[in-house]
């Protein structure tokens, strides 16, 4: 059962109704109670459809950041047997905002893969320890080290993306945050093993992309991916964070929007009400999709993977290129 106090405003009536149904189910029930439960379940399902068929971009942003949403390790623990976590960048420290390690991918017959991902924390203490999923340079450098290891061992890479962004702090700048992100973009472009990335929550800017260069990009139904947080965009372009809702709509950052822009290969459906309602089912859906893409990529040689990956990113962007001399490039209304 979900705690209504940790629910978003727009989902609270649904969560309360679901909790009531849950309570009734626990009572020793006769026919009467069963009928009542049935009615309530129908009502819940109508309410769910009502709320979730009409989510605004901002509501999807809120869902992507939901405090009860499954995080990277919630997926890894369900998708992997024998997960063996590996730590540290070998230079400065172990950044717990990024987790990585080897494990056997259950839906793929226990095949060893490298898991890498941003890790948010649940509860104040863990959230602080994980720095709210905002990596410092050593987090990205740990990621790079582990992904290079996977490439040498010819193991596929599964990257789970969930960060508000790279950490903006004095220490992060001193240790070369920009370089750490940039280096990962370069290195990931050249790893001759399959890389499947899944945005499971927040895809926050360069800090997300730094673990997200891939052959196949999947996004969970209620995840978002953007060049800057809506709050950041609002404070720059609208000079006020209170316009975050507008900015979220303007930036086209929902999974559907990103697919329309041709960046995403597949949207992974979430359990009714969102991934936080059913971790097991969410993980099963992710595992099924990731395995399917890995199997398809298996047929390609290392060089074919690299060529395909290059062509994929090479084609991203929207511009005109005409030899026409006197035509303005934009229609002015």
């Amino acid at each position, binding site marked *: 059962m979900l705690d209504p106090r940790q629910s978003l405003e727009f989902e609270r009536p649904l969560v309360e109704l679901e909790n009531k149904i849950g309570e009734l189910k626990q009572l020793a029930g006769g026919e009467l109670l069963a009928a009542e439960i049935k009615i309530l379940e129908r009502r819940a399902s109508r309410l769910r459809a009502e709320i979730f068929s009409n989510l605004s971009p901002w509501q999807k942003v809120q869902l992507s950041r939901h405090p009860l949403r499954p995080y990277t390790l919630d997926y890894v623990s369900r998708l992997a047997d024998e997960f063996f976590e590996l730590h540290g960048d070998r230079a400065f420290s172990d950044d717990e905002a990024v987790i990585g390690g080897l494990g056997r991918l259950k839906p793929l017959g226990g095949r060893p893969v490298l898991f890498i991902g941003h890790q948010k924390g649940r509860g104040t203490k863990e959230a602080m320890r994980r720095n709210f999923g905002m990596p410092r340079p050593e987090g990205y450098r740990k990621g790079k080290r582990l992904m290079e290891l996977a490439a040498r061992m010819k193991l596929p890479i599964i990257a789970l993306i969930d960060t508000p962004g*790279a*950490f*903006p*702090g*004095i220490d*992060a*700048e*001193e*240790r*070369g*945050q*920009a*370089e750490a*992100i*940039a*280096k990962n*973009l*370069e*290195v990931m*472009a*050249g790893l001759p093993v399959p890389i499947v990335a899944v945005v499971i929550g927040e895809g926050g*800017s*360069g800090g997300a*992309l*730094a673990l997200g*260069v891939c052959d196949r990009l999947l996004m969970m139904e209620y995840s978002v*991916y*953007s*060049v*800057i947080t809506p709050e*950041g*965009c609002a404070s*720059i*372009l*609208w000079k006020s964070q209170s316009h975050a809702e507008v900015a979220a709509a*303007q*930036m*086209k*950052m929902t999974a559907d929007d990103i697919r329309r*822009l041709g*960046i995403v290969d597949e949207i992974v459906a979430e359990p009714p009400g969102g991934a936080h309602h059913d971790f097991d089912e969410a993980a099963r859906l992710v595992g099924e999709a990731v395995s399917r893409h890995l199997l398809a990529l298996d047929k390609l040689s290392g060089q074919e993977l690299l060529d395909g*990956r*290059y062509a994929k*990113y*090479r084609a*991203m*962007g*929207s*511009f*005109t*290129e*005409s*030899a026409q*001399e*006197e035509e*303005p*490039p*934009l*229609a*002015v209304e």
Partner: protein
Amino acid sequence: MAWWSRKNKATELASEKRSVPTGLFIKCDGCSATVDSEKIRESLRCCPHCGFHFSMPTEERLALLLDEGSAKEQDLEIAPLDPLGFRDSKRYADRLVALQKNTGQADAFRSFLASIDGVPVSFGMFQFEFMGGSMGSVVGEKITRVFERAAEQKIPAIVLSASGGARMQEGILSLMQMAKTSAALQRLRSLGVPYVSVLLHPTTGGVAASFAMLGDVILAEPGAMIGFAGPRVIEQTIRQKLPEGFQRAEFLLRHGIIDSIVPRAELRPKLGQLLRLLRGDCAASPTNQEPAADHPVP
């Protein structure tokens, strides 16, 4: 030649006004001295007292850096679109048109084949006056082509960066330019062709966090602000005052993030020297004996 690439007198004036006003005495940001703006213009837009680097209009910069008559501009027909239909207080499409009229350029980046101090290079530089040099699809495409031409012709790539980062108005497509340019660089690097990244004031955000920080050699102008996060964002996040000189070129040099700080007047001979060394030339260039003879040193 496309309409936006025609020379535009009004524009030149406008961009000069932004950096160093003409015919006035101005207070130097570096030493607080009151300086004749004419003097600053004569000394490569540097303060004659303390050497503070004011911003330099693109045309002056090109003339200073590229060998005379060597530059052939590339990719002139590439122009931006408005893929998101983005609108804040104004429509992005309208902003683009206004900026194209004001700057005479299609977008925030110009690419060339040219030579620097006698060495043929694939060259590109940001046009900061165009939306703060932000990187959208056009900028990302042109930078990618700079690297691809360098790879095809086996000539060094040189990029001068001055940018606030990725362009918000093109959303995720701007973010993906970081991956695209870095992938092009990955290929270039695997061929053993050098890339020298020159960081001007300011270089931040998604541009810093991609190709700008990936130079085989990274040079910076004195005092340039360089970093991932902007100082305001950092202050808001950690609720601390930032130390003096934070994120300036000198700070980055001290922290091992860049190779060298090169004053504007020395950039052409220094680049020539570096490229010849990287190429394994046995003889130094004649210009190294008489550095930048045709340009006054501030």
